[in-house]
């Protein structure tokens, strides 16, 4: 493996450039079938080579995976490819890394695993990508076709297991067609509403002979995507916006995936409409802008939740109105006429009735709306009200110097120590919410998290994927929790081996903190299985892996230690011992009224 690592080192600028040049050829080949377009490429001879060729044709530069019996033919074909394979420590990490690669780059991230346990270990990551509509292609080995159904060694019905959590999946049925199966799966992962796709690859199919060159990635004929919204509804929605007194924009993850952030910014600023984001929508609008009310929902800001509750026109773009955003349906934006822009017709009126359903690509529809809206709404009073809420429900927190370090302070220190384009990844729990609330996001594709699935352990492997998708001068910071970090920290071995410049800040309270917070609020403080009581010393553990370890116990350590860890060229881990009693507020309890968010425990 070390030989291969030496072949293309992603952190080495010169070689990295070379690799990008190399991949330009397959990129051009996406215009037409690859056959004959590349003089340096040997014709395919096997199913496995067709699989790899399909990836090359699609412009794939990186793949994340773990070897194993049934996937070996694919790896053997990959051995001769310019695609850089990152050998992960666990398949869950491979899926999360590919997912994050997809979020940051906008192109499907690719992960590989063998049959049976390899495939089932991918499941969490695939489910995560499905919930968050992240473009991802999973390739799994399978036992030879003649053994399928016999409970063979390492056999799992992978397409069966993953049907509910993939956008589409395929059991490859022959060596001649497997290349196109992969091309099509790649295209499906990317087109329309993105999502994870999977191709299950029986070993006889990948080992089998074929000279069939795969076509460029194309979606099947049955897959249709509507790009432009109905003009009549656009006109009606525009009129509604013009006449509204309390308008609000709600930007979801679809804004970022649809490359509509710029169009939304222009629209919001031109018409002076306050902007709320969902959690996956973080980064779609600069949070330091006057119009920004930041994130709404369970742990959204008080001002975003007040605005979403009191608006009379809610323009939701690329959001699926998830229950963590809406709280109780009955009290969600109860006076708002809803304009819902989404590329997936099934999201329209699924949870919240759309008065103006606009099906189409986010950027296209926002441009349609922009053309149709002639007069900005007269909402001076409303904007003043929103500003008032911003000061009434300030996110300012107490940080007494004689108490343990407050987590918010650490998040802010990390934000200050890094540039605006820094990518933040997280695990799931309290630390994730503090990372949402106290880091000021200004650019799309800089927030990488497990939103819908809420998969603890997402942080470190996603930082690995994000690192490889990011520009070399972009920093990657993983804000993690002690519980989340413990779930996938074996990924440190990958970060060290691949010499990836990432900084992991573990907000360590020796609790599954969010559960502890809920137990205090709803279970009479009975800390069942949430109190670890003991945690390894993460800085020393990092050193054992060959990463740089740091530890923070006091406020005095924060600024310098954070600066050192960010400056360190390679993987570093800061074990930050935070106040174990710190809680996340505001909070809307499950199914509660957004406008009645609690600011303290006794308000729950």
């Amino acid at each position, binding site marked *: 493996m070390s030989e291969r690592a030496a072949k293309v080192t992603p952190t080495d600028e010169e070689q990295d450039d070379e690799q990008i040049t190399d991949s330009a050829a397959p990129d051009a080949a996406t215009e037409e079938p690859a056959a004959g377009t590349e003089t340096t490429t040997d014709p395919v001879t096997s199913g496995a080579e067709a699989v790899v060729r399909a990836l090359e044709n699609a412009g794939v530069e990186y793949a994340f995976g773990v070897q194993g019996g049934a996937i070996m033919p694919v790896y053997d074909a990959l051995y001769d490819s310019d695609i850089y394979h990152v050998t992960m420590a666990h398949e869950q990490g491979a899926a999360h890394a590919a997912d994050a690669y997809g979020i940051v780059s906008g192109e499907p991230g690719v992960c590989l695993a063998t049959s049976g346990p390899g495939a089932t270990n991918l499941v969490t990551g695939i489910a995560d990508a499905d919930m968050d509509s992240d473009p991802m292609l999973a390739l799994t080995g399978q036992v030879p076709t003649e053994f399928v159904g016999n409970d063979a060694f390492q056999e799992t019905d992978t397409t069966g297991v993953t*049907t509910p959590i993939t956008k*589409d999946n395929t059991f490859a049925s022959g060596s001649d067609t497997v290349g196109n199966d992969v091309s099509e799966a790649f295209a499906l992962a990317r087109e329309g509403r993105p999502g994870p796709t999977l191709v299950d690859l029986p070993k006889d199919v990948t080992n089998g002979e074929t000279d069939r060159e795969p076509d460029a990635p194309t979606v099947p004929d049955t897959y249709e995507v509507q790009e432009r919204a109905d003009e009549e509804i656009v006109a009606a929605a525009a009129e509604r916006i013009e006449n509204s007194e309390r308008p609000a924009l709600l930007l979801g993850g679809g804004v970022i995936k649809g490359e509509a952030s710029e169009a939304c910014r222009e629209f919001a600023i031109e018409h002076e409409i306050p902007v709320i984001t969902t959690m996956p929508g973080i980064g779609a609008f600069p949070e330091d802008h006057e119009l920004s009310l930041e994130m709404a929902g369970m742990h959204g800001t008080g001002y975003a939740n007040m605005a979403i509750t009191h608006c009379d026109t809610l323009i939701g773009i690329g959001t699926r109105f998830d229950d963590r955003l809406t709280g109780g349906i*009955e009290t969600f934006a109860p006076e708002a006429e809803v304009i819902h822009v989404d590329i997936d017709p099934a999201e329209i009126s699924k949870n919240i*009735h759309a008065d103006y359903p606009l099906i189409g690509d986010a950027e296209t529809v926002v441009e349609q709306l922009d053309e149709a809206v002639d007069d900005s709404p007269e909402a001076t009073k409303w904007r003043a009200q929103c500003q008032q809420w911003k000061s009434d429900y300030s996110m300012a927190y107490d940080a007494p110097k004689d108490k343990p370090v407050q987590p918010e302070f650490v998040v802010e220190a990390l934000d200050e120590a890094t540039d605006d384009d820094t990518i933040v990844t997280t695990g799931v729990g309290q630390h994730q919410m503090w990372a949402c609330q106290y880091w000021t996001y200004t650019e799309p594709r800089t927030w990488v998290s497990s939103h819908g699935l809420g998969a603890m352990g997402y942080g470190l492997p996603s930082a690995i994927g994000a690192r490889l998708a990011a520009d070399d001068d972009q920093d990657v910071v993983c804000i993690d929790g002690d519980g989340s970090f413990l779930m996938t920290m074996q990924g440190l071995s990958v970060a060290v081996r691949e010499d990836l410049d990432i900084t992991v800040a573990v907000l360590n309270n020796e609790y599954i903190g969010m559960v502890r917070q809920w137990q205090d609020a709803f279970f009479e403080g009975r800390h069942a299985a949430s109190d670890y009581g003991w945690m390894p010393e993460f800085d020393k553990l990092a050193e054992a892996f060959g990463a740089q370890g740091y530890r923070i116990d006091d406020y005095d350590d924060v600024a310098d230690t954070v600066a050192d860890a960010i400056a360190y060229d390679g993987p570093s881990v800061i074990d930050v011992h935070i106040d174990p009693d710190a809680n996340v507020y505001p909070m809307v309890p499950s199914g509660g009224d957004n406008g009645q968010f609690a600011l303290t425990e006794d308000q729950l």
Partner: protein
Amino acid sequence: MKKGLEGPPPEDRPTPAGRRNKQGIRIDPEVEATHEPRRTVISALVEHEPGVLSDVSGLFSRRQFNIESLTVGPTEDDDRARMTIVVEEPDPGIDQVKKQLRKLVPVIAVRELEPDAMRRELALIKVDAADPAQIAAVAEMYGGKTVDSSPQTATVEVTGARQKIEAAIETFSQFGIREISRTGTTALARGTDPTGTASATAQPADEANHDEPYTADDD
């Protein structure tokens, strides 16, 4: 004491007067209207390939759609199969069924059939053979026939709309029913109106759709 944030407490905040119902529709709190479930027939043209049936049935179970029957079989085109699904859902649910079905990649077209669509089901009804002549007479009344008889049993085949099958079963129950097997509803649109093509758009069926009691001229 766990800390929190500053700001006016919930009881001091203004609250809007409006509400939404459980389906996310804005309502006048005084006159809360809910959508009642209705039964309707949805026809889906799908790629004839392995796994489509489990894709569709899995979709119905994991999204908790209320399904009464699902039939599948080949069509005039070897590469395509037609699924006929009878669902019972309120209007927003029926809308979701159609949209979620359409999202499945091997699904080519989805359409809710009009109330006048041809809907048929086949039932095999096995009864005690105490009175073969009477059984044959009842079978004839429902346009059916006896397909098997033994000293103890007689099995009758009846075809028709769901209401007719149910009426037949009720009538046959006088003989003592041993076993019943029903195929579930299959359906086609009438006349030149295609049941499913890639461009077919779903038409909402009205309340009268399928719930009327069976009368002989239904056939």
